[in-house]
């Protein structure tokens, strides 16, 4: 049997092939190379809780999309930084130089981000991170950096507004971990609170690793409320000790302080805490429902800031890829597309980015309540279109000193 290709069948075949492929959308023909995404997270050590959730959120998103974005296959490379800057630098180099990633999700902590920002900017690799360090999108901006979550103070501004105008508090005491994230949160709260007529009477700064908060708890009195900005597992420890000490002041918190994902570890000490976060589980959007259902099914826990944040990063990357037709070779164009993303159906609701690459979106004031045998955060007010500068003029804001431990200074 010989395999002869008659001229006719050849012509017929090619015609059909040509006709067939001509009708296919351009995207599917364009790039068959997969888009490579690197995830910098912390899977070992004290920061692991947040890092593991970041990975879960990322995997959840890609599973939802079947590892295909804008017609291209996605390859995800997960790197464990160990939670230290030197390790983060090495892993970033690995992702960029060895794995040739097109973009990086993460890292988790501000000090990790600060260690790599110059390097990734030089390499022109877009970084989509949750790290809240303010100056990354203010006074020392990285043009390839996108933050869909919040700056340290972005959620504290509306919280202060709510505290002064609706809760009518006049004086507060602030307490937060003594590092940049804590300083920036409390400073943001203080500025808006005092501009609305309130006063911060005392600022307490326990070290990041404090087994026993009693020396600080003993100094909490003589104000209308307490504002706390703890992160990681410290909110749990603190609230427990706060209630045990019999302290009764109402507690206001930042995003991580009463994060949805922490609720399963909390007990009654969390009831009544009012927090302001970029993400809330009771937001009724289809993507949020999908995220929550998927997380509960796969990992047995509802999502919080970290997992939702990475899911949203996935959506941002997807939207940008669809804008560029799936192409990532032109770094500048892809970066521009990232910054131009504006979405409505996301787990955090509608948002877009300002010209620094920081998110402008909804922030939710929630109260922690007990419903049956579960703790839930119930949204009581939504502040829409909040930017990192709150209602202040951007130029004025940037001309002020950066938020720090001593700025704004205590009055009187």
């Amino acid at each position, binding site marked *: 049997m010989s395999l002869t290709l008659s001229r006719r069948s050849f012509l017929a075949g090619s015609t059909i092939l040509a006709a067939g492929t001509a009708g296919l959308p351009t995207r599917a023909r364009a790039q068959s190379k997969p888009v490579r995404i690197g995830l910098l997270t912390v899977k*070992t*050590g*004290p*920061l*692991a*809780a*947040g*890092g*593991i959730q970041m990975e879960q959120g990322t995997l959840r998103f890609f599973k939802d999309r079947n590892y295909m974005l804008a017609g291209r296959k996605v390859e995800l490379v997960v790197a464990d930084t160990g939670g230290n800057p030197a390790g983060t630098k090495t892993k970033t180099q690995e992702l960029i130089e060895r794995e040739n990633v097109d973009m990086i999700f993460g890292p988790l902590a501000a000090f990790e981000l600060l260690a790599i920002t110059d390097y990734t900017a030089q390499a022109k690799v877009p970084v989509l991170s949750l790290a809240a360090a303010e100056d990354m999108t203010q006074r020392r901006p990285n043009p390839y950096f996108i933050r869909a979550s919040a700056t340290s103070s972005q959620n504290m501004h509306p919280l202060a507004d709510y505290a002064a105008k609706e809760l009518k508090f006049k004086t507060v005491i602030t307490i937060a971990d*003594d590092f940049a994230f804590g300083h920036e949160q409390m400073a943001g709260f203080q500025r808006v609170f005092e501009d609305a007529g309130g006063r911060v009477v005392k600022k*307490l*700064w*326990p*070290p990041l*690793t*404090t*087994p*026993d908060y*009693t*020396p*600080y*708890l*003993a*100094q909490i009195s003589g104000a209308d409320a307490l504002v706390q900005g703890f992160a990681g*597992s410290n909110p*749990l*420890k603190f609230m*427990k*000790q706060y209630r*045990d*000490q*019999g302290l009764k002041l109402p507690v206001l918190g930042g995003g991580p302080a009463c994060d949805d*994902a*922490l609720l*399963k*570890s*909390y*007990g009654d000490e969390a009831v009544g805490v009012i927090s302001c976060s970029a993400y809330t589980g009771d937001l009724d959007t289809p993507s949020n429902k999908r995220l929550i259902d998927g997380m509960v099914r796969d990992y047995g*826990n509802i999502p919080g800031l970290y997992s939702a944040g990475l899911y949203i990063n996935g959506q941002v990357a997807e939207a940008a890829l669809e804008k560029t037709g799936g192409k990532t070779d032109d770094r500048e164009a892809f970066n521009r597309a990232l910054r131009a993303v504006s979405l409505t159906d996301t787990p955090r609701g509608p948002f877009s980015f300002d010209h620094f690459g920081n998110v402008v979106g909804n922030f939710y004031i929630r109260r922690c309540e007990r419903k049956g045998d579960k703790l839930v955060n119930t949204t009581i007010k939504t502040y829409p279109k909040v930017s990192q500068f709150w209602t202040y003029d951007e130029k004025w804001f940037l001309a002020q000193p950066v938020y720090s431990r001593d700025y704004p200074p205590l009055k009187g």
Partner: protein
Amino acid sequence: MSLWLVLAVNSVTLGGLLFLLSAGFSLIFGLMRIPNLTHGSFFMLGGYFAASLIEWGLGFWPAAMVSGLLVAALGGLVERLILRRLAGAELAQVLVTLGLSFMIADVCLKVWTGDPVRIATPPALQGVTSVGSFAFPTYRIAISLVAVAFAVALWALLDRTRLGAMIRAGVDDPDMARVAGIRVSRLFTIVFCLGAWLAGFAGVIGGPILSVYPGLDQEMLPLALVVVILGGSGSLLGSLVGSFIVGFLYNFGQAMFPELAYVVLFLPMLIVLVVRPQGLFGRPAV
């Protein structure tokens, strides 16, 4: 003045918890001459075990006892299989305990994940106790009482039993103890298990206050070190006094000099090491 009173009372209660943590460390250090760098891991592991036991229905105090036993069993294995092979090579033993602490921390992360685990305060001890116009958390007062009870029990063990006499002999002079017919190597195992039990138990007792999370081991170990250096290794009284000193330093230091929080803790340790290396109540170094 209520600030100072609260701090003073808390110094005592923190001291109580530290005593439970460091008594074991002190015995191990005094008898076996090893600073057991796995001690923090034992503390954390005890907390994790208890959290799981409580979830499966066990009560708080039984869980504390059983967790202690589980950790003690692990300690026994470590001592017999690893430390005994390195008898005499103290540096090697220290390094092994360090390596083991890495391993235990990672296993805990795998089994219990990275989220903090809470241990509920036993229902009978929840709430505050009022004395006059002051209110103190009842559970913390209970910790002090438990610590005192254990201090008395350990003292009785060391002072009134044959085992205790053998331990004291071993602490004072291991070679002479051997000559006198004491099986020092078996003593080592017993003391290591006892120390591990105490650490695990302390981890459970501390659980309602601290909860249990990755990194707890590294937070507690330096505190145990400071207590034992200050008080003197191998001395129960030293651990007790050292615990309260550290409790006071911690509370008042954090409140009055928050900038120098770590310096306040470690500087006295440094001074003691330089001026009186055996600590307040320890034996002068051989």
